[in-house]
């Protein structure tokens, strides 16, 4: 599936977030876990799938090969996509404010 600017999967969003610091596969799994405060433990299959798909879509690219490992970094396009997604999510949260207010009322 080519990324055309619609809502991202959770996996895509967190990989982009984690790649704000260039990183390679295995450590990326840990930094995703860190970035999400331990909420997301991404499996290697999912991670690899997301990486190769986003690389194809130009959202991330290979940084200088660091020895035998492939190091990925976010591209400018990726940063734009990430910001767009962040704004979309933020708008969703703002739009959903009434839920929180409702909860307060119920509480």
């Amino acid at each position, binding site marked *: *599936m080519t990324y055309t600017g619609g809502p991202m*999967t*959770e*996996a895509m969003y967190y990989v982009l977030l984690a790649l704000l610091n260039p990183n390679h*596969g*295995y450590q990326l*799994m840990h930094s995703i876990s860190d970035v999400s405060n331990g909420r*997301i*433990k*991404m*499996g*290697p*299959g*999912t*991670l*690899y*799938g*997301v990486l190769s*798909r986003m690389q194809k879509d130009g959202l991330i690219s290979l940084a200088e090969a660091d020895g*035998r*490992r*492939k190091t990925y970094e976010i591209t400018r396009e990726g940063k734009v996509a990430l910001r767009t997604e962040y704004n979309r999510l933020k708008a969703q949260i703002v739009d959903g404010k009434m839920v929180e207010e409702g909860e307060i009322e119920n509480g």
Partner: protein
Amino acid sequence: MGKLVYKVRPNDYWRIGEHENWFEEMAAKGLHLKKLGKMFATFEKGEPKQMKYRIDISIDRKISKDQLDMYAESGWQYVTRDKLFYVFSSPVEVNAPELHTDSAEQSFTIEKLDQKLMGNAIFTVVATILMIGMLSAIWFLEGTPIYVLIEGWAIQQTILAAFIGYTAYTSLRATLSIRALRKNLMEEKPVNRHATWTKRDRLRSAFVVVFTIFIGLSAAIPVVQLVKNKTITLPRENVDLPIVRLADIERNPHLIREEPEYMNDGVDWGNRYSVKWSPFAPVQYDTDEGGVVLGKEWSDGSGQYSPSVHTKVYQLTLPAMADSLIADLVKWHQYDENKEDYVEVNHPDLDRLVVYEGADTKKIFASKGKGVIFVRYYGDAETNTIVDEIEKKMKLIAGIE
């Protein structure tokens, strides 16, 4: 290295959950997966161990080292693969994370596989339909399927077509299953890891093994035919073969053979016999013979008398096929004559005798036991003479005293 154990593998390669479960059960019994072939899985005997197995699909021709490294660092060791289906294992106590933690993402990894399988399925189904069409023409165009079977024209091709048909069926099932799996994953329904093989799956797998062996053996048919089939110029003198000869029909000392009109590969095709083989008629002869009688003219004054004879001889594997073969031979050799002119005659020493008598043409179809003989004769000899000769030769092939 431990002892290797081979197990028939359910050939539904696309059923991921069932395979994973099966490998885990085997590992718990001390049989550790080594290799996954098309029909057999190889296990190595060792200590029973609680293992997790996962199958991952990679549409790329070869899974990248990068991906393998990433899996290994997470605790998943590559075991083996069957085409695009890669098997990884991890001891339960390592507590490795699932390979795929996001069903929607996983569904993207099989999107291309889905398309590829659909392409395969369409191709094999079309190929099957074409093959069935072509083979039907061979078998049924003249309405003589038994004749075609006994001649052995299309036996191996038909078995092969059956195999391709089965392949088409399998690839359709694969396509539908992978499509369903993809749909489930998109709806966040993960692979069912509790699925197990049913008895029916196992039976089907055993059938596939037997069927494949059978197809392998059937490949010998055209080879045997190639080795056995040959065509040789008929010697002028008597031969020790169950062939009705022109000289025996004519019974005229002035019958001579003319210079060959058509020679090819050193064979005089006007005076030749061919030896043939097929599974349902392992002994077959096919002959042509012609000659002229010096000082004799055709009764209608059309020139020098030149009789000829064409014969076919079959020794059948199954005598029960003789009647159907006679019927088909009649059909095959009947042109614009009336069907009623082919007369069934009772003969004390033959099972069947069908005779057609035209002006200068006689066609005689006879059978006894395993033997079937057809003679087409141009000339003025009596039918009885030919039948007598057929009866003599029939004794050699009928398989009955």
